[in-house]
């Protein structure tokens, strides 16, 4: 039951993240134009990319990526591939639109899934990131 309520809360959040005012606040607070609704700033996302040694040819998984922040941003910045995973369909749809808009099809994928059952084969990725998922 709590999982359903939590998913419902996130569905509402992702839907509202489309609003101009929410986008404007995100640009100021987090320094990003992705549909981010957590606490991860661009500077912190950059730090994640650096410590994970992301580079072309490597595969990153972003667990609980919502609308694609920061996984899609990191893939764009570092040239790696990314699988952005989220259980909330609204978030996955937002991330997919961003992939298309940024011409990242072929090296970025937004898919529905959960951390408990990741839709990737064991040992098939180089790095995993998640931000504000467990809080």
């Amino acid at each position, binding site marked *: 039951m709590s999982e359903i309520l939590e998913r419902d809360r996130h569905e509402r959040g992702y839907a509202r993240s489309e609003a*101009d005012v929410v986008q*404007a606040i995100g640009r*100021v607070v987090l320094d990003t134009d992705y549909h981010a609704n957590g606490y991860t700033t661009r500077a912190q996302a950059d730090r994640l990319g650096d410590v*994970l040694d992301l580079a072309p040819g490597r595969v990153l998984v972003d667990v609980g990526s919502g609308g694609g922040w920061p996984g899609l941003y990191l893939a764009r910045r570092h040239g790696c591939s990314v699988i952005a995973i989220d259980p909330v369909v609204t978030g996955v749809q937002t991330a997919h639109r961003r992939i298309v808009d940024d011409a990242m099809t072929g090296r970025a994928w937004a898919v529905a899934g959960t951390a408990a059952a990741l839709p990737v084969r064991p040992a098939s990725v180089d790095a995993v990131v998640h931000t504000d998922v*467990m*809080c």
Partner: protein
Amino acid sequence: MAFLTIEPGTDLTPAQRRRAGRVGPPSVMLPTSYPSLLRSAGFVDVEIIDLTAEYRITQQAKFDEAERHRDELIALVGVDEHEEGRRDRRNTLDGIDAGLLRRRLYVARRR
């Protein structure tokens, strides 16, 4: 693996932990610690970086921007939800200042 999270502060009394649960993000109260979770998942090389000062700045910016865009946000979510959010943002700031909440970056590797 690298992840960012918010968690209760260190050495909190039971009452402070309860307050941290009220003023922090919805799932801030973890029944165990991240280092023990990482160890049980096979990660042996764990680096922890405290980012609480940055979290304080982010939370203040969230509060300030929500105030600045008050009318637009009320049009989006309604006055009741906006006021509830305003209280939550204020309480979170107080919780950070009281040492109840902290933000950390975990970087974990398998050998």
